[in-house]
């Protein structure tokens, strides 16, 4: 059965849409990631206009982050004060990102910038994750090897506006999480992702937050950032397709349950290694698209 998506204005088989949600939901349940970095490129690949893919994915991430944050909240693993600082930065960054997106779309460079962002940021994160997990796998084979220090004192700790974050056991400048979240917010709006794949490692390694509050706190702020993108894109470009978002979500919710069951059977470093490989593959595929000679150097966009 085909469904004509009212905002995307494309007709897709309903099994393809729910299957896509289920497949990516499976991976996100297995690895504990949002999956936006897989969903947005897949939607574009299936013929959904890039602007609709990015805005609709933001709408879907609102739902998956709400669903994810509840469990962390119940366990008390959300640092709301840190979350508030992060989301302030995130709102500023994502608003800028939405503006940047529409400018790039008008000058015909949005596809290039989306692809370049994926290549650069997924490439870096994927490579770092792969190295880390290989090292971790080696370490488990050589017991007795020591872990390096969690974080050191450096220039970042000399910044003004210091704030105490009790839950995170930190006393750092509020500017740090603010600018971190602002930067990730810009990427969220352009890449159609929640940004957890940058935010989580940055919160651990850059801010020095304890791992157990990181996921819940990042999910908490991603809700607001993606809700902001959903609202801004709805008003400015009318590219949020909530029918598409709803169908993807339906598949993703079910897929994630199965993924989580598979995930618990694998060891942490194996999971991270596998995730790193997927992240690198997406990055390489999009990078390849940019350098390989296109079939037709001319392209066409209907502007209406």
């Amino acid at each position, binding site marked *: *059965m*085909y*469904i*004509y*998506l*009212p*905002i995307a*204005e*494309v*007709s897709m088989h309903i099994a393809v849409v729910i299957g896509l949600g289920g497949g990516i939901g499976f991976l996100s349940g297995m690895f504990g990631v949002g999956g936006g970095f897989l969903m947005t490129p897949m939607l574009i690949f299936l013929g959904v206009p890039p602007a609709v893919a990015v805005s609709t994915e933001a*709408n*879907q991430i*609102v*739902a*998956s*982050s*709400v*669903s*994810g944050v*509840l*469990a962390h909240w119940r366990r008390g693993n959300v640092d709301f004060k840190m979350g508030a600082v992060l989301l302030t930065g995130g709102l500023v960054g994502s608003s800028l990102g939405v503006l940047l997106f529409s400018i790039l779309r008008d000058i*015909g*460079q949005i*596809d*290039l910038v989306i692809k*370049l962002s994926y290549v650069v940021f997924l490439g870096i994160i994927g490579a770092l994750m792969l190295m880390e997990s290989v090292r971790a796998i080696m370490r488990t084979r050589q017991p007795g090897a020591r872990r390096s220090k969690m974080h050191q004192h450096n220039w970042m700790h000399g910044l003004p506006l210091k704030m105490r974050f009790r839950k995170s056991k930190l006393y750092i400048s509020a500017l740090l999480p603010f600018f971190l979240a602002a930067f990730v917010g810009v990427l969220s709006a352009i890449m159609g992702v929640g940004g957890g794949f940058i935010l989580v490692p940055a919160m651990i390694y850059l801010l020095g937050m304890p791992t157990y509050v990181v996921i819940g706190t990042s999910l908490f702020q991603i*809700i607001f950032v993606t*809700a902001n993108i*959903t*609202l*801004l*894109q*709805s*008003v400015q470009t*009318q590219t*949020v397709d*909530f*029918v598409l*978002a*709803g169908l993807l*979500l339906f598949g993703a*919710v079910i897929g994630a*349950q199965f993924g989580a069951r598979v995930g618990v059977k694998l060891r942490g470093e194996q999971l991270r290694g596998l995730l790193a490989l997927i992240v690198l593959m997406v990055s390489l595929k999009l990078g390849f698209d*940019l*350098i*390989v*000679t*296109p079939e*037709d*150097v*001319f*392209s*066409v*966009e*209907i*502007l*209406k």
Partner: protein
Amino acid sequence: MISKALLASLFSSLTLLWIAVLAPTFANTLVADLSLEEVAITTDFNGESLLLFGAVDNAQEDDIIVEFKGPTLKIASRKKEQISGIWVNRQAVNWRNAPSFYHLFSTRAISDFLSPEQQRELAIGYRNLGLEPQTASLPAEGLNNWIEALNRNMVERGLWFQHDGGVSINRGVLFRAPVSLPANILPGDYDVRVLHIRNGQLIAEDRTSIQVAKRGAGAFIYRVAHDYSVFYGLFAIAFAVLAGWVAAAAFRKT
């Protein structure tokens, strides 16, 4: 769908019989009609097939061209160039009046019975659409490459199409052309022009049109998203929050 088409063709056959009887009294008659009055883009829309049919006078040796043209709009053509290894869109041409849909059907290859000049006079074919570029600085290479590229890209999307042999004439009086509209067509008024050509001359012409419109729940959602965009955005967020909460609650035990 099939029964609708069947009914339509039955009805059309009766009409045609009547026309065929009366036809000899008029010189150079050409009457064309479509099997549908409207194409509705509903929630389960995945393209639509329809039939263009009609009657002509003494067309045993002649040719018929059917032009199916969608609403014109702005289309941007872009050309990629390699910059330090990466393919980047550089030059762009914005067409102000390109048809979003242009299907051309004929009894045989148009170049077999009309010279390029005759085609230009009759404004037949994508090369004779009178495309106007909006761009201030036109590409140095001229527009021909760009028009050919526009055609290639639109053909690939199924929006432009030239079907030689797409029109069949029965006993020199009845003609028919099956038309298939792809799922990615845009709503608007679609104009149909039918030309009867003999020895390179236009003998008779008829025009009709059909509306493609969004209908049903999808049309409603589209209208709300455009006319009440703030409300739509807030609704989309509320819907997502609720769906996320329900999902978490449903799977809490497992």
